[in-house]
């Protein structure tokens, strides 16, 4: 079966700025892919081309077997979008919003159950203007999934969340993944990509600089572990490909309990920063 999303040689310029300069990747059905990259890397342009909002200058794009430039009603029924920075709907209540957007689909989720699912049951009669940032974002997600989409676009869904709200949100995305929804997520939070994504695409200066599962992306960044400890007043930090034998040797040498011993694998964030950094040198 072909992939849910297939992108080849995608290009888009704004004046003389090449915002997207030959991006290509594919997303398998039922997988969750996170797109990472600094501001201005071309993430939003790419995603909005896939959503059928923006046009492209060159390249081949297939989303659920169709070119989003020719998006029709049938295609829109299968695609859910959670856009960035929404400040609309303020004078409606949560329940009114969900009911209204449900009415655009032939077989929508039950509004009350959906409101429950996104954790807004006690807010359903509140005006949207009275919601907190996190609650508002959960409503945005509810509106994105009300039609039961096969493919969901989430553009920076958790910006401004407190840690608890973020965890709750991740659980919600986990539920959608279990239901078989294909998800393309853009985010600035590495731990979010790590927690949710089967696959990570790092974009910088309009090009894909890495495309791998989160764990492999870490390995690609050198794969060396960092060992830290303290002897007396002195702090040590060593990068090593063989942390187990390094610690064994260390123990043999000092023969006792090591103060502040810590063995750390490079995080996705380390890997990401290294990837972006390498680019800057080039």
């Amino acid at each position, binding site marked *: 079966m072909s992939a849910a999303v297939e992108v080849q040689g995608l290009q888009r310029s704004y004046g003389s700025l090449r915002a997207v300069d030959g991006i290509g990747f594919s997303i398998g059905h039922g997988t969750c892919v996170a797109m990472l990259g600094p501001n201005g890397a071309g993430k939003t342009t790419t995603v909005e081309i896939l959503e059928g*909002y923006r046009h492209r200058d060159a390249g081949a794009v297939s989303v659920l077997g169709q070119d989003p430039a020719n998006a029709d009603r049938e295609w829109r029924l299968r695609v859910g979008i959670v856009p960035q920075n929404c400040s609309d709907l303020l004078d409606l209540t949560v329940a*009114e919003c969900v009911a*209204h957007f449900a009415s655009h689909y032939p077989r929508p989720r039950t509004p009350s159950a959906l409101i429950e699912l996104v954790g807004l049951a006690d807010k359903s009669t509140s005006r949207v203007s009275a919601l907190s940032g996190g609650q508002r974002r959960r409503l945005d997600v509810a509106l994105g999934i009300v039609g039961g989409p096969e493919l969901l676009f989430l553009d920076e869904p958790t910006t401004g969340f407190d840690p608890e709200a973020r965890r709750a949100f991740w659980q919600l995305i986990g539920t959608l993944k279990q239901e078989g929804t294909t998800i393309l997520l853009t985010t600035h939070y590495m731990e979010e990509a790590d927690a949710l994504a089967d696959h990570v695409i790092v974009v910088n200066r309009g090009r894909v600089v890495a495309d791998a599962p989160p764990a492999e992306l870490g390995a690609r960044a050198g794969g060396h572990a960092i060992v830290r400890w303290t002897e007396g007043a002195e702090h040590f930090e060593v990068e090593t490909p063989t942390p187990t034998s390094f610690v064994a040797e260390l123990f043999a040498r000092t023969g006792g309990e090591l103060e502040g011993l810590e063995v750390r694998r490079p995080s996705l964030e380390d890997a990401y920063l290294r990837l972006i950094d390498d680019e800057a040198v080039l």
Partner: protein
Amino acid sequence: MAPRRRGGSIAWLLASWRGRARVELLLISRDRRTIIFTVMLPFILLLVLSSLLQGKPLNGGVSYAQYLTAGMIASGLVYGAFQSLSVAIPDERTNGTLKRLYGTPMPHSSYFAGKVGGVLFIYVVQVVLMLTLGAVAYGVHLPHTSSAILTFLWLSALSLISFTSLGIAFSSLAKTGQSAAAIATPIVLFLQFTSGVFFVFSKEPRWMQLIASLFPLRWLCQGMRSVFLPPSYGAAELGGGFHLGQVALMLGAWSLIGLVLCWRTFRWLPLGED
């Protein structure tokens, strides 16, 4: 099979239009700015000006309130259809309303159907409020002949089409609602003062009459006067009559211009984001 499916899809389309109109009504009724500056303003103006100028009848014994009622109903239509849409739509373009709707399978026509529903709602409320006020407080004679009522209906319909479509077309000019208001408000004020809303049109300077005659408000006011003023007052009009054929022709032409402009210029996304 095919005709049945077609019937089903039309029913579904109508339901979608109704759903969007319902949302527009909720938004209008909850927005204090719209209630005051769009729904209530013509009522307030009618109240204040009629009180100030009470007891100063115009030529032919017509009370000022009677004359002003025609003009304020015309003005209310312009506020609700042209001015409020030309400001609300840029706001909805910048706050993401249009982008979100564009990303759903909602038929695009539903957005416009909702706007039309909102405009109609505002107009009906304005007319009921002003006619009640006029009749109760200033002895305004309401149209009662079937020909006057018929004229009122086609005149309202044609004017709603032209000013709604012009408002939607105008909304594509400005980036934000605020900048749209800065352009639309002076235009509306200028047209009100020159088109015979407050002052007797036939007594205006010739150049003013000529400019106002290019735009639809002058013709809407003239048509409304034919509804609210006695037939004999037609003699005091420019050209010695209400000339309803000419009124229909000008409003029809502006409807056509407005609809073509809407069709050609409407944008779902902010400029540069497509």
